[in-house]
């Protein structure tokens, strides 16, 4: 699981730290292609990107890059709260109606869009076994939740992650 800088990293850590979590602490917009590189390198493992509207807006082009390669083992969950919640709650473009689900669909990703928890079980199963590239657009509330801060040591979490998935030489 790869989490983008900002609230997605806090949210993923809040679900419980795990050696198979990798947190990106800089480079807003990088997350989708980190997932692509990992999915191409490990085609037999499922890769989940947890990201937000700010990260995807900065990386709209990377949805096209992913759409061309069509990695079956890659899924993106975009937690869209319409705000840059980690940096002052300024509204993002999605607050003004820009639709990231439509953008992902146009880039040939397989899209599911939700705005409540009614389909949570179904979508969890889809993430575990559905064919990618998946893009789950989840509109969420713009609350400022308590933050769980995982390690910022990039080399340490890289080695921890690689050891956990068996890619550390």
């Amino acid at each position, binding site marked *: 699981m790869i989490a983008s800088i900002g609230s997605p990293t806090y949210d993923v850590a809040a679900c419980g730290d795990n050696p198979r979590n990798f947190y990106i602490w800089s480079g807003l917009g990088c997350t989708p292609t980190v997932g692509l590189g990992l999915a191409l*390198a490990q085609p037999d493992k499922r890769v989940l990107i947890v990201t937000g509207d700010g990260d995807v807006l900065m990386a709209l082009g990377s949805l096209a890059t992913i759409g061309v390669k069509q990695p079956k083992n890659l899924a993106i969950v975009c937690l869209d709260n319409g705000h840059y919640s980690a940096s002052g709650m300024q509204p993002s473009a999605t607050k003004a109606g820009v639709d990231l689900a439509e953008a992902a669909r146009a880039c040939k990703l397989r899209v599911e869009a939700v705005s409540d928890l009614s389909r949570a079980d179904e979508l969890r199963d889809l993430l575990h076994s559905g064919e990618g590239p998946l893009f789950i657009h989840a509109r969420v509330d713009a609350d400022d939740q308590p933050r769980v801060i995982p390690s910022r040591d990039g080399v340490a979490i890289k080695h921890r992650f690689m050891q956990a998935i068996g890619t550390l030489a």
Partner: protein
Amino acid sequence: MAQWDVEQHIHSARQAGWPDRIHAVFKRHAIKQVGYVADNGIARLIDLCERDNEITEIALASEAEGAGLVLGAVLGGERAALLMQSSGVGNCVNTFSILKNCAAPCVLVVSMRGEFDEFNSWQVPMGSITEPVLTLCGFCCYRVENEADVESTTDAACKMAFGGGNPLVAILLAQRMVSRTKPKGH
């Protein structure tokens, strides 16, 4: 890995051999993912990577995506390289930070613009700061002026990136060597 006879390949292609030599060194160092943004100067190198079954080539919408691709490949246990024009380096300044923060090896091949016999003056501002920008981003920069130095330089860059020392290494291909075809009308 099947034996790749680079001399035979260059001979049969009847072209400048530097793209073939870079490709051959990539294979020798087991580079498996090559991300790029289209560029006339490195068109043959891109083509060689595309036609190679042992390499996955990824056409990027922006060079800025390249750092993410490389970090993902590294996490997945594969070696990766990026190909781009010098103008694209400017698009990557912030995203290169993820590679530096994680000490993720990256071999970056840059075809220079804004130098010798440049036909578009608007390429000069970025081309003239490419090397210092890369140095500030943490890259070791190896500049290649002559085709005779391509193979040894690419090999040294791969050894530096993948063997410790400095994980970020850029190979700057001088515009004079790359000899790009000018578009119609220029």
